[in-house]
């Protein structure tokens, strides 16, 4: 049964290999992708159920004991994030045939898609720092392929910057792993945590921690390091934007959660105070960016940054409520960002432009999409019955418990402005006079509705059925507070 931990990595990897054999037979490869993703979701949901019943599953690759071989650790946190990833994957698999051109699909889109899912799932599940680097590269390589797919002028221009910044941060990651290896003599996360605990995190270890934070903050687009994100996320196809916006930055913030709740937990007065500052600045600057533009895709892309800021608050305040809030908000935000990117992509496709000044009266032609966008705005901003509310409530509660009043106020204020930034799209683009230039194409629109509705359904479920999810989320918060549990399960002591 320990092989359960490797299934979310192996299934999409095999699917990627198989899909690469018949790229031109679009009808076959589309159905194959959809079926494989549904299977993958079912398997992951089974794994989640198993982990919840029997506790963390640790797979030692090749039967080598924990510090010597590579371990895959499927605990509640990682496996629930993998499940979220796969749910988004299903929605994108159904959306992709509608939004991609035939040529883009033929050039191995589905292979890259599966490889991206493989990389993200692997990064969530692995228990080894260098293996985390390798999975980062797997998902980044797939994302390089996806971002240039189509090969337009602007895509080529922006993807160079994207590749450069990621190559640089990857090399820094390798250097930091080398630093850490020279100090503690291992790359296994559980053993690193144990050794760091033995020496009580001396100065050099805090430095290494900060270097790791720099690397992951570049990937997650936190305050001073987010400049590469907005433009490179809007140039590819909407379905690729949705995958990027939902998954890539979240892997970065997950790594921050993992590293700073497991390994570097002894000097919190320095590191975690810094996190709160950075979280606050990310909130402010992300919101300013979202309000500054009239490009609807860019508005959504800028909204990624404050969301990452919110998640970082929970790590910064360093208590159980904060951690639960972070995890809840992480899951919620992955789904809603995918839904919003898909919706905005549909709007831009049907209206023929992504300039907000040129779109109006959209809801007369497409009421379904319009009202779904309305609900999505409410979910994003955190209006009570929906999922954003509970995440933010927990985060703010955590902040108040630690007496961090300022960050709570910034969080609340930026929530208002986030609502304003997305409502601007709704009010200006969807309301108003009928635009006579739009020729409604309901058949295409119907194809866009299903994947978005699926994602919104999960979001609403997460909010309305919070009582079902809350006990497990709370136990994850408790689990993150006690890193000994992780070390003991992995190192079998």
């Amino acid at each position: 049964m320990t092989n359960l931990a490797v299934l979310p990595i192996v299934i999409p990897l095999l699917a990627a290999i198989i899909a690469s054999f018949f790229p031109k037979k679009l009808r076959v490869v589309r159905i194959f992708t959809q079926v494989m993703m549904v299977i993958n979701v079912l398997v992951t949901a089974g794994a989640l159920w198993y982990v919840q019943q029997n506790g963390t599953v640790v797979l030692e690759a090749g039967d080598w004991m924990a510090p010597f071989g590579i371990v895959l650790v499927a605990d509640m946190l990682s496996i629930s994030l993998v499940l979220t990833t796969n749910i988004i994957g299903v929605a994108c698999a159904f959306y992709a045939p509608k939004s991609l051109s035939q040529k883009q699909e033929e050039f191995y889109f589905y292979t890259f898609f599966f490889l991206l899912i493989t990389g993200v799932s692997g990064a969530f599940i692995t228990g080894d720092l260098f293996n985390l680097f390798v999975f980062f590269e797997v998902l980044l390589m797939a994302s390089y392929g996806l971002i240039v797919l189509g090969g337009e002028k602007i895509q080529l221009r922006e993807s160079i910057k994207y590749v450069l910044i990621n190559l640089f941060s990857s090399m820094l990651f390798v250097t930091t792993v080398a630093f850490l290896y020279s100090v503690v003599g291992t790359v296994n996360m559980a053993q690193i945590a144990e050794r760091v605990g033995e020496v009580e995190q001396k100065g050099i270890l805090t430095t290494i921690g900060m270097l790791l934070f720099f690397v992951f903050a570049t990937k997650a687009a936190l305050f001073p390091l987010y400049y590469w994100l907005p433009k490179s996320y809007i140039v590819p196809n909407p379905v690729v934007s949705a995958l990027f916006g939902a998954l890539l930055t979240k892997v970065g913030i997950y790594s921050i959660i993992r590293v700073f709740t497991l390994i570097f937990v002894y000097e919190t007065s320095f590191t975690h105070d810094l996190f709160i500052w950075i979280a606050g600045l990310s909130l402010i600057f992300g919101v300013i960016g979202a309000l500054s533009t009239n490009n609807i895709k860019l508005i959504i892309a800028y909204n990624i940054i404050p969301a990452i800021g919110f998640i970082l608050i929970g790590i910064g305040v360093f208590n159980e409520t904060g951690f639960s809030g972070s995890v809840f908000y992480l899951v919620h935000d992955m789904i809603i960002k995918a839904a919003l990117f898909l919706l905005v992509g549909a709007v831009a496709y049907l209206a023929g432009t992504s300039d907000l000044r040129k779109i109006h009266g959209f809801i007369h032609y497409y009421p379904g999409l319009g009202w779904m966008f309305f609900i999505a705005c409410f979910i994003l901003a955190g209006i009570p019955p929906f999922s954003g509310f509970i995440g933010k409530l927990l985060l703010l509660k955590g902040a108040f418990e630690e007496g961090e009043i300022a960050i709570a106020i910034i969080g609340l204020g930026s929530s208002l402005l986030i609502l304003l930034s997305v409502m601007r799209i709704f009010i200006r683009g969807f309301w108003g006079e009928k635009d006579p230039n739009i020729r409604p194409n309901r058949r295409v629109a119907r194809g866009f509705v299903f994947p978005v509705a699926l994602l919104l359904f999960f979001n609403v479920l997460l909010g309305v059925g919070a009582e079902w999810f809350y006990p497990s989320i709370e136990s994850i918060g408790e689990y993150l507070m006690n890193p000994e549990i992780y070390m003991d399960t992995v190192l079998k002591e």
Partner: protein
Amino acid sequence: MEIITSILAGVLFTTGIYNLLQKQLLRIIIGTALISHGAHLFILTMGELKQGAPPILEEGLSNYTDPLPQALILTSIVISFGVTSLLLVLAYRASKENGTDNMDQLRGNENDY
């Protein structure tokens, strides 16, 4: 010995970053290559450069060099090789499509998309 290689890695990083901040696309790619060389040299150094036999199992040998950093470097070399070749093709296509390899002119304009 570690001090010398550390300084060398530092020099590689500095020249790499200097090249990374230039305008010409090809120089930027050379910069990334230098940085990855620096990183790989750095891993080797951090695994301690003590003297010993190559890590191949033979009768009667007891003093080995550390095999783990070598495996890490090998992985990292292949990965950065893959990324660099992708980056070179990308730079070729981008400069051809956009008609320039000057990063100043490869800036985005708000109304393009």
